């Protein structure tokens, strides 16, 4: 069991996807239920991993449930997967959000079979990134995740709207958004791939723990690649290649403009997964690869990264406040919130091994989890309204609270979690990041408070223009209360938001141990 646990988690969705394709395409109901049930399998096994994690035996590098089988022997790549507290947290988030997103997609009528199959494939791609301990394997999963998401946006995205590019050349909004998402990530991946290849050539293997150990034992002046360059130079170049790839994905300002487009145009469940999990891949990359592989370079570049993170916090909040489109407002809120993750990572990179660094890392990872919950919840709730009134324009809404009191209450609750209200999850992680970053980058942290203030402004704008004020009757005939299925999607998220806000110890304990281990591995 211990041996095959991660493999089951990882490939159960893919197998389910293939099986989905065997169901006749007109059995929509069956397809939906099958996809939902199938997506519960990785969740159940993720919970098994969660509960047996403490007692499971670890390999010398601290990873548990490790499998290491030769895969691409010719170039030294192997199927090496393993789990530590960081990946456990992320796997839990992914396997939790996937069934909820599938449940949220029950309203999809168009090509249901293909949709569900893509969704399940996507889950494997994301899980693979979190579980891989082999650089090439990691890269394969990193890229695989793009393809289903591209099609989800491109084919099932919002049907309305066109964007003019230049000289009167127009494309559909969802085409534009999906291209931008794809190209942007690919552009970042190029450097990443080159850097990974370089490591592969130098070490004749892609094994991450091995490379980390060897790489950091080398002196900066050592020549590699047959005297072509030195370790120091190669590290400096590869550091930026890795960093840019991950920064694009998080996204860090100013590489963020693909995000509002992709999130806004994606179907509701796509946005939930994009915001909930895909953004975390970038942040995860910093923690799993950049910090262990390039500690000195990260230390040197931390100030720049922290500055960009602060820019993301501030400008993300401002841009969200300037929106009339509810979904785009929520999309920009991700830029704002993920800025805190990167700020925490940057502070830790600068002060690695210190108390501040551990606190900042704890905050960053917890913020990844928390943002996964609240952003997915927010996108879902915007989708609930969109499904009914087919607009996202806040100016066409208003005064809906008396008509949809349950929905209103749920929206306010989720918004408050997103705002970082104490008692709900977001506060603790933001507080820990601020606490950790304050001792390292006081000026950036203080400036970030402007963003925190405007977080309040945009969240309240969203609430007040949809729920409060006099009733806007434009679309009101189509409005109806949130239904049971939709409540089933949001309730688990709300429970977790409250639970983590009041008693985060169960999760933070795992994260804390992982972050201490991560730093001690760097030394």
């Amino acid at each position, binding site marked *: 069991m211990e041996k095959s646990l991660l493999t089951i988690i990882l490939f159960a969705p893919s197998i389910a996807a293939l099986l989905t394709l065997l169901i006749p395409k007109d059995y929509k109901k069956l397809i939906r239920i099958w996809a939902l049930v199938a997506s519960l399998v990785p969740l159940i096994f993720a919970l098994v991993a969660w509960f047996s994690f403490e007692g499971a035996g670890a390999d010398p590098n601290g990873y548990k449930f490790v499998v290491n089988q030769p895969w691409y022997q010719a170039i030294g790549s192997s199927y090496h997967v393993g789990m530590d507290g960081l990946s456990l947290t992320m796997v839990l988030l992914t396997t939790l959000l996937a069934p909820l997103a599938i449940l949220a997609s029950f309203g999809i009528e168009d090509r249901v079979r293909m949709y569900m199959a893509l969704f399940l494939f996507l889950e494997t791609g994301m899980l693979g990134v979190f579980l891989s301990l082999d650089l090439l394997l990691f890269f394969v999963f990193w890229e695989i995740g793009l393809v289903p998401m591209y099609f989800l946006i491109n084919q099932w995205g919002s049907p309305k709207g066109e964007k003019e590019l230049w000289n009167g050349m127009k494309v559909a909004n969802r085409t534009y958004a999906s291209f931008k998402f794809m190209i942007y990530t*690919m552009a970042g991946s190029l450097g990443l791939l080159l850097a990974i290849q370089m490591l592969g050539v130098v070490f004749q293997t892609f094994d991450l723990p091995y490379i980390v150990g060897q790489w950091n034992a080398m002196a900066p002046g050592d020549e590699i690649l047959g005297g072509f360059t030195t370790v120091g130079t190669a590290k400096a170049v590869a550091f930026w290649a890795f960093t840019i790839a991950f920064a694009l994905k998080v996204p860090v300002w100013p590489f963020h403009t693909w995000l509002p487009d992709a999130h806004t145009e994606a179907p509701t469940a796509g946005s939930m997964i994009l915001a909930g999990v895909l953004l975390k891949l970038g942040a995860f990359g910093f923690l799993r690869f950049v910090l262990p592989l390039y500690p000195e370079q990260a230390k040197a570049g931390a100030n720049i990264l922290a500055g960009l993170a602060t820019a993301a916090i501030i400008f993300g909040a401002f841009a969200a406040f*300037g929106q009339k489109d509810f979904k785009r407002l929520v999309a920009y809120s991700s830029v704002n919130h993920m800025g805190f993750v990167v700020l925490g990572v940057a502070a830790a990179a600068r002060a690695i091994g210190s108390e*501040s660094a*551990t606190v900042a890392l704890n905050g960053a990872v917890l913020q990844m989890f928390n943002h996964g919950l609240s952003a997915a919840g927010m996108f879902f709730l915007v989708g609930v309204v969109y499904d009914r009134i087919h607009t996202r324009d806040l100016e066409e809404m208003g005064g809906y609270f008396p008509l949809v009191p349950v929905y209103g209450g749920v929206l306010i609750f989720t918004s408050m979690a997103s705002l970082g209200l104490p*008692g709900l999850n977001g506060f603790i992680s933001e507080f820990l990041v601020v606490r950790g970053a304050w001792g390292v980058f006081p000026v950036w942290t203080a400036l970030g408070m402007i963003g925190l203030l405007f977080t309040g402004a945009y969240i*309240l704008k969203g609430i007040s223009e949809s729920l409060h004020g006099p009733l806007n009757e434009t679309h009101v005939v189509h409005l109806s209360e949130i239904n049971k299925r939709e409540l089933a999607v949001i309730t688990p998220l709300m429970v977790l938001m409250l639970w983590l806000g009041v008693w985060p110890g169960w999760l933070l304990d795992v994260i804390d141990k992982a972050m201490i281990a991560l730093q001690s591995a760097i030394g």
Partner: protein
Amino acid sequence: MEMTNLLIWLLPVPPLLAFFIIVLFANRSNKASWMIGVGAAALSFLGSMVVFFQAVGAEHLGEHPFGSRLDWLPLNGAHFQIGLMVDPLSAIAIFFVAITVFMIFIYSVGYHNWGQPKGDDDIPGLPPHGATVVEHGHEHVVPSIEPMFARFFAFIGLFAFGMFTLVLADNLLLLFIGWEIMGLCSYLLIGFWYGKPSARAAMIKAFITTRVGDVFMLLGIALLYTSTGTLSFRAILFDEQVLQALASTDSGFFGLSVAGLTGILLFIGTIGKSAQFPLHVWLPDAMEGPTPVSAMIHAAAMVSAGVYMVIRMFPLMAAGMEHGHLTPPMYAMALIGSVTALFAATIALAQNDVKRVLAYSTISQLGYMVAALGIGAYVAATFHLVTHAFFKALLFLGSGSVIHGMEHGVLHTGDHHVDPQNMYNMGGLKDKMPRTFWTFLIGGFALSGFPVVTAGFWSKDEILADAWAHSQFVFWVLAIAAFLTAFYTMRQITLTFLGKPRTKEAEHAHETNLWMTGPLMVLAVLAIGFGWVGIPESFPGLGNYSNNWLHHFLGHGLPEWLYTEALEFSWFPLIASLVVALGGLGLGYAVYKDVPSAEEDPLKKVLGGFHTWLENKYYFDEAYDFLFIQPAKWFSEKVVFQLMDRKLIDGFLHLVARVTYWLGGIFRNYFDIPVVNRLIGDTLGGAVPQWFGKQLRKVQTGAIQTYMILAMVVAFGGLFVFMITMR
């Protein structure tokens, strides 16, 4: 002891449970909701009284407070602990909080028209408009029950939970959690009638304005945590070495010590929360909420929390104080507090809305407390916090009762253009609403500091006496403000209750029921009686019968080095306090005893154009709108979104795409087509690939390839340049 420690954890729980039970299960039953809500408040009240009296009876409570803690956040292999604690300050705080909260809950049942029929066309989100009933064969309109009756008790329960958590917290983080929960509740309750655009604006204004303070406070908390490694009150505030270290370490900002910087950051939180100048603008607008909420915000909870926090952090604020020289945070408090006290009092002079006058008086009185703490008068500040909570809750609930009575008149005449909150529409209510009148009079006199009998006199007198001893500036500013306070309070009482009714509605006003007047009477007793616990021993005559219990009880809650004996008696501040209180009251009555309408307000003649400034609150709202709100909207939408993201960043991306698109065209036209297609393709029978190419081009418009090419060029180029330069 064990029992007490457990009981302390249970104090905040009932209102929280009430919130969840009402929201999840009882939201359709008005009866169940109020019973759960009031029952929860009663439980917390009883528990608080038990804890309070045990605290009073305990020896050396200051050194050995009640309380316990538990592990909360696993951090760095250890745990961040949170706990609850009852020391003298917390004991006093739960005393006044529990009583006022309980009274407000009871009052709310009546205020929201429990027992009245459902309104004819009431909808959730707007105040009830009245219901038509047929009695004895003819129709008339009676008040109707609040359509969101259940929701109100849920929200106000959560509010009470926030305040109990805040005053019982044994560390700054837990205090902040209670602080923010109250921020949410005041947001929800100020905007309780969210259907009104004015309420919607007010709820956002309250939340954002206080959040300005909150983010500074959060920085202060982070700074304190970073520099001491803990946030526990005992570990920081009662450890002289820690405070010494904080006071002697340079923070690197503006030449302040770490203690000074932390103190100022935390104090900015109070400026927001307790509506001090210049963040006072939200509090008057908070009147948009139902009146019990106003009492909750102005007396029992929200704004009191701000002052409570600085009182709690006083040892830190005072760290580094030598020979009576004020530290920078204390200096800031003294200055801002006294300015606020005077400034808000002047605005109150020119307000005609019965609740707005009270709102500005709250700002002004909070200024007293802040200023008192700034000059080191710890006990006096706390004393005034408590007496103010009692008499201000009384005044707000009283004004709600007045409004209710007036609404009765409005329903009777059916003329909905008459504003039931405008004091110039009232007059002569003394005979219509005797219980409301007498209790309001007591509250008003306590606010004015009517000598000897009212609680407000003793606490205000103590502040003035301290100010006289420590700072002439503060003393004179506060004395003038006290005079204005007495004057506008008497103006309010005279216009509302005395003289003759100015409108038909006032003639038909009606005393409210016991749900509402009952709490008024209880609070009236406290607005008088609570003063007696703090009569200085040196006070002529009465002092012989007093042991100044409050001073000893509270004072011993401070660390040794801060404890000071009660001041020696001094005649001058006492006389000043008598003169301003009685003079203000007398003048207020004399000026306003028969003013017929707002146009003939005598102050208008005296103050001239300045009166218009006062009426418009010195145009702060307009100025902030012009300086901050409009620019923020413009900056967000036009600069950050449209210019930065759309024009610059996306513009650059599109430029790259366009250039590569053009490059791709060249490749196609001058390489693909002539070389590949014609030369190779035609000779190899290229019809099939050509067809594929056409199809693909339709879908992709060539963008992917071109993007890829450019990205590769940029990546390789950058790598190349880097490799060369680094070697």
